[in-house]
């Protein structure tokens, strides 16, 4: 087998309130990011326990694989727009993908 050719991309993971889902999807689209994945979640942070027992306390977890600059732009946007008023945590990490043109 030929060794596979991977390329580095950045994975941005966002933990936040489920109410924001629609709004964040619009932001992502607007920034020209081409894909994302969302899971339902619950958790705890500086804004207290969010245990997903009803609408107001549901969290989501968004993952976005993209080029570093895009990830930074989105992260900066999140920080500026949402960090101070919403339960939100985000982090970046490095991943390897095939088909780099896709991200």
């Amino acid at each position, binding site marked *: 087998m030929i060794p596979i050719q991977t390329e580095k991309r950045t994975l941005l993971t966002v933990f936040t309130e489920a109410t924001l889902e629609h709004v964040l999807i619009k932001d992502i689209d607007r920034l020209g990011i081409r894909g994302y994945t969302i899971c339902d979640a619950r958790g705890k942070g500086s804004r207290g326990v969010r245990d997903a*027992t009803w*609408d107001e306390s549901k969290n989501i977890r968004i993952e976005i694989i993209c080029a570093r600059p895009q990830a930074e732009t989105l992260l900066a946007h999140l920080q500026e727009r949402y960090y101070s008023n*919403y339960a939100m945590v985000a982090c970046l990490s490095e991943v390897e993908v095939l088909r780099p043109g896709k991200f």
Partner: protein
Amino acid sequence: MNSIDPVILFFLFGLVAGLLRSELKLPSALYDSLSIFLLLAIGLKGGQGLATQPLGPLLPQLLAVVVLGVVQTLIAFGALRAIFRFDRPNAAATAAHYGSVSVATFAVAAAWLSSRSIDVEPQMAILLAVMEIPAILVGIVLARGVSKDTDWRSLGHEAFLGKGVTLLLGGMAIGWAAGPEGLQPIKIMYFDLFKAVLALFLLEMGLIVSRQVDELKRRGLSLIAFGLAMPLLSACLGLGTGMMLGFSVGGMTMLATLAASASYIAVPAAMRIAVPEANPAVSLAGSLGVTFPFNILAGIPLYHWMATQLTGATP
């Protein structure tokens, strides 16, 4: 003698279980399903009633409840700013909760009246749907003023096509188009099981309300005072409006209950997006932790008693 309504007992059970930190919780898909069911059933019932009467008199009523919603929101905002010293965003968001309505409270009132065979005007369901909305818009304007970058389109979308309004209006349309006869084959589920489903829903409401207690403790008495005073004031406005519109005792009780009730589904979701600086825990502690239990435990019988007094009817 009337024993306590099982629906209320379910609520108290959930409340106690929650306060004792029991491990009881309903799957969130069940909670969602129950609320979809209740909204549809309320809509169907109202729509079926509308099918048997002229729609003409509806228009002034719709206008009246829109005004009622707006006035309530403004009063709540004023009181929260002036008396309770809330900052602008929190006052606006909380006022929007109180200017809007609560479907669960409506459902409890409907069950309470029907178990006493007190008739209610069928259009109540449509008034319920309509009263959800104006407070949201007013609340946003109060928080932000009218500025160019308010995204009215998506706010309108949120307000008119949110889950609750869609289900109420859709249910009404179906009930109206099918009429009492057409609904016959589905009556057993949407009408006969209504109260039992409401009971289960209120069990979960009790659990949710129990989680507001911490926030209430943190806020002290002022939130409790507001959460009790506001529904009483609103109920009076509702009774007045109902009288003006020539409603029956049942209809007046219902409109008073609607006015007195505070939203905890549609409005929090909308305010979270539109007024991010407002802390949702505050509004919810008031609307869920104080006003909701007050209305279903003491408010409804009280509003009914006031309606009978006002109309001079024998209770």
